[in-house]
């Protein structure tokens, strides 16, 4: 049964103003023991993955997820609205078009927003 559940951890809040993105990534790591969670990044949460942001609190989570081949997908539309280019982002994340992001969320069994 567990293999059938698509877990999406949905990050939507920016880093540093709250601990939500950090705690969301910590949850992605924890859930990865039993599932293959997809981390989806929308709205101001995209700021968490620009190269220049201080990632002291969560770089280990990002590296862990990358190390076990779990995806972090960033919404292209949210980037464009904020004038952020793909080049501004760290290598561990992958940019997806808004339609694909919508489909990932729509196809989830469980969506956990942070």
């Amino acid at each position, binding site marked *: 049964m567990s293999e059938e559940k698509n877990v999406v951890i949905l990050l*939507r809040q920016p880093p540093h103003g709250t601990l939500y993105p950090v705690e969301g990534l910590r949850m992605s790591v924890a859930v990865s023991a039993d599932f293959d969670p997809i981390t989806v990044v929308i709205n101001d949460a995209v700021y968490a993955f620009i190269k220049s942001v201080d990632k002291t609190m969560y770089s280990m989570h990002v590296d862990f997820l990358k190390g076990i081949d779990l995806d972090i997908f960033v919404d292209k539309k949210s980037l464009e609205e904020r004038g952020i280019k793909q080049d501004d982002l760290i290598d561990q994340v992958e940019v997806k078009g808004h339609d694909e992001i*919508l489909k990932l969320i*729509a196809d989830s069994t469980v*969506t*956990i927003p942070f």
Partner: protein
Amino acid sequence: MSKKVLYFVSSEDSTGIDLAIEHGDDDDVTILLLQNAVYFANKTNKAILNALDKKKTVVACKPDVDIRGLNDLISDKINLVTMEDVVDLIFTNDTIINM
């Protein structure tokens, strides 16, 4: 492959409503508004009117609407549901998208 999808919106972030509106037409989509999200049900809210136009079902948690005194301010196309109905909605939908 049509399925029943519940957008479970309990925060003032309108993203859940936007995503529900953009959700494909194949699925049977319900938007459930709880807590401060019931303010989205105000007749003046364009996103919710848009969702209704797009044939999404919109329901709001009755105790949350009642305590806020919103009965006369919300669209009559929005059904009010009790907390017991909320429990049933949770189990009768195939997917829940929390927001």
